[in-house]
């Protein structure tokens, strides 16, 4: 889907990060609904899973469009109402499948790298 420009050097970590990021976002709202700012901070603090924090907002917008997450507006003590994110059942299934795939993938890569 992402067009590859000829001659462009691709950083494998950038590609990997893009691939796993949305599932990390889903994982961060697995147990309780989450505020977008807290999601961004958690990703940033987790060893730089996101380099430009602002790019999470387009990602969250797509997850809403794809029906993986839903949001509710809640009053906040400071300032305007805030939008809270939680997983839909479709999002939950997508996350579960990814966790399984990722575990297998990670083990396979580790097995080759450690050899």
């Amino acid at each position: 889907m992402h067009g590859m420009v000829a001659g462009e050097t691709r950083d494998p970590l950038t590609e990997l990060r893009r691939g796993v990021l949305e599932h990390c976002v889903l994982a961060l709202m697995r147990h309780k609904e989450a505020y977008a700012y807290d999601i961004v901070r958690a990703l940033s603090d987790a060893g730089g899973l996101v380099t430009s924090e602002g790019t999470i907002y387009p990602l969250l917008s797509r997850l809403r469009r794809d029906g993986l997450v839903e949001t509710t507006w809640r009053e906040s003590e400071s300032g305007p109402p805030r939008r809270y994110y939680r997983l839909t059942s479709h999002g939950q299934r997508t996350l579960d499948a990814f966790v399984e795939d990722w575990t297998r993938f990670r083990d396979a890569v580790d097995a080759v790298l450690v050899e």
Partner: protein
Amino acid sequence: MDADVLVRDYLGRLEAAAAVLPADRRAELTAEVREHINAALADAGQSDEATARNILERLGSPDEIVAAEARHGGLPVGPAVASAVEAPSTGSRWGAVEITAVVLLCLAWPARYLPFGLFLWLACTMIGLVLVWASSAWTTRRKLTATTCVIALYLLAILLTAPVTVQCTTGSQSQPCPPGGPSPVITGS
């Protein structure tokens, strides 16, 4: 510079970069980023210039954010996306220039047998080749191939027809040239 000015400037640039997005999504994105900045300032507990600058740096440039929007399919028909998709197909699609070039080059040789044949032949060939080289649909490699083919075919045609006339005019007078033209081997012996 004041932190407020920095933030206002950043949001202004974001709005400008987001002009390619649908209006409702542009408003939503700007509101989300503004909310992020406010939350980060509250989190930091201070709103001096250095803090604001740090928050904006971590957000990334407005262009980066809008590029992410495009990557996630937020652009219905993004200009960059659309041109990237269309570029390869327009590269090989025939237009008026290509069709005219082929028609002229095909007609050039038969045109020799019309009145002013030599002129028509040369004109068709020259214009045809100019159009071939003016085409934006064909690669230089294809243009070179086409030009070489045209020249080679004419040379071949001239070589095949020229010996007949030469042999016939210098050949034996008792034996007139048959309509089909004798082969050079027969008339020469």
